[in-house]
């Protein structure tokens, strides 16, 4: 029997497990293959919903479903976080003390917000990367009566559209509250344009200019001086703020660091095959890779589909059949009731179109359809 072990029950791991279970139904029944999914939680969170929690438009309860309810029959699922990888012996060890042997291993443990890595950031800035933080951000926005709202973005971070989406949505939120004339939105970005994707940056600049959003590029947050309400940048800038919003820097998960699988918790990964460098039977998905591509659910989704096809082919034919071309599709909320999208791959940059209400509705629909997507039905 060929054993496939997937470590991580987020978007990538769940889609992959379901994709494989559908492709290998006959092999599962004949016990020629097993698919084991190991996760740190019995719940699955729809992480993009946190953005809406920060504006009071989704409740945190709507973000969760039971992980087991999302899985195809035949998948072996354990809430049993992996603590050690013994790749020379094709084994992982877990918190419960169990050992799981594998023929093919997939690591998709994700990333975590790490505002603590910047002095003062965790204490003084709001963000939307945990339920607690998103709910706190909503309270801060509700209580805000005017002044400068500063947006600072750490590197690397998850979901590349969030800095823009937060800014656009705050613009409309304050407009609806009738205090936009008392608010200055001050957007900063680490590189020399408004977004890492050049065309998205150009598009955003036009939108910001229309909305009156101020911006400063080449701004990497060095520290936050909460006593004086100031942010200091690595480049020497000092900006006063009244409300500080951050897209915090992210790190890989501790288990990746503790096992020395990659600097920063990012595992060196072949961008086409998704194999871990130096390990033919170990694959990496989603945020966990060191591939210079968006850390986003969509990335994990498309990677999981490519890998599902390849792992099924490896089980059946002993060879991989395709490569991952870098496909990503991201919605971009451009306010409270309009949106656009960025669709791109390694070779083809996105061409964002003017925002429409229709695209916003698609996004709202996707917020519900995600549960079908993660089951592998969409």
């Amino acid at each position, binding site marked *: 029997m060929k054993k496939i072990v997937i470590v991580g029950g987020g978007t990538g791991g769940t889609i992959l497990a379901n994709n494989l279970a559908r492709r290998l139904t006959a092999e599962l029944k004949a016990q020629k293959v097993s698919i084991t999914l190991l996760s740190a939680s019995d719940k699955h969170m729809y992480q993009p919903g946190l953005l809406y929690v920060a504006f009071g438009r989704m409740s945190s309860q709507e973000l969760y479903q039971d992980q087991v309810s999302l899985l195809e029959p035949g998948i072996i699922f354990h809430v049993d976080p992996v603590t050690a990888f013994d790749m020379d012996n094709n084994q992982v060890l877990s918190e419960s003390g169990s050992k799981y042997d594998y023929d093919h291993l997939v690591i998709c443990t994700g990333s975590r917000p790490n505002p603590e890595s910047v002095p003062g950031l965790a204490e003084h800035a709001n963000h939307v990367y945990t339920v607690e933080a998103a709910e706190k951000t909503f309270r801060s926005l509700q209580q805000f009566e005017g002044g400068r709202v500063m947006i600072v973005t750490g590197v690397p971070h998850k979901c590349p559209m969030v800095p823009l989406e937060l800014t656009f949505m705050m613009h409309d939120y304050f407009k609806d509250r009738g205090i936009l004339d008392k608010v200055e939105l001050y957007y900063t970005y680490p590189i*020399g344009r408004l977004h*890492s994707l050049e065309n998205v940056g150009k598009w955003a600049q036009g939108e910001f200019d229309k909305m009156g959003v101020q911006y400063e590029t080449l701004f990497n947050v060095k520290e936050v001086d909460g006593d004086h309400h100031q942010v200091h940048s*690595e480049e020497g800038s000092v900006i006063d703020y009244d409300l500080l919003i951050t897209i915090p820097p992210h790190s890989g998960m501790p288990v990746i660091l503790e096992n020395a699988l990659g600097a920063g918790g990012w595992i060196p990964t072949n961008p086409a095959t998704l194999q871990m460098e130096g390990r033919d039977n170990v694959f990496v998905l989603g945020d966990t890779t060191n591939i210079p591509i968006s850390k986003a659910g969509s990335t994990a989704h498309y990677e999981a589909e490519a890998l599902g096809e390849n792992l099924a082919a490896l089980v059946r034919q002993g060879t991989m059949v395709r490569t991952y071309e870098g496909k990503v599709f991201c919605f971009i909320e451009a306010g409270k009731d309009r949106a656009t999208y960025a669709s791109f791959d390694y070779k083809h940059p996105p061409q964002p179109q003017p925002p429409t209400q229709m695209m916003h509705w698609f996004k709202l629909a996707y917020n519900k359809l995600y549960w079908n997507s993660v089951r592998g039905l969409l």
Partner: protein
Amino acid sequence: MELIAALKLAEVGDELEVLSTDKGSANDIPEWINKVGHQLLECREEDGVHYIRVRKTR
């Protein structure tokens, strides 16, 4: 962006090389390196690929 992330993980004295097909990055990186005080060792283009080599100094 990748260079910024990599520099955060590097040790002082380490050399890093960025290979980029993005013209914007080729302009921005030297400007940024100057601003934050790292050392630009090389910046060249070959067949549409920009090779930018940097030493972390602090």
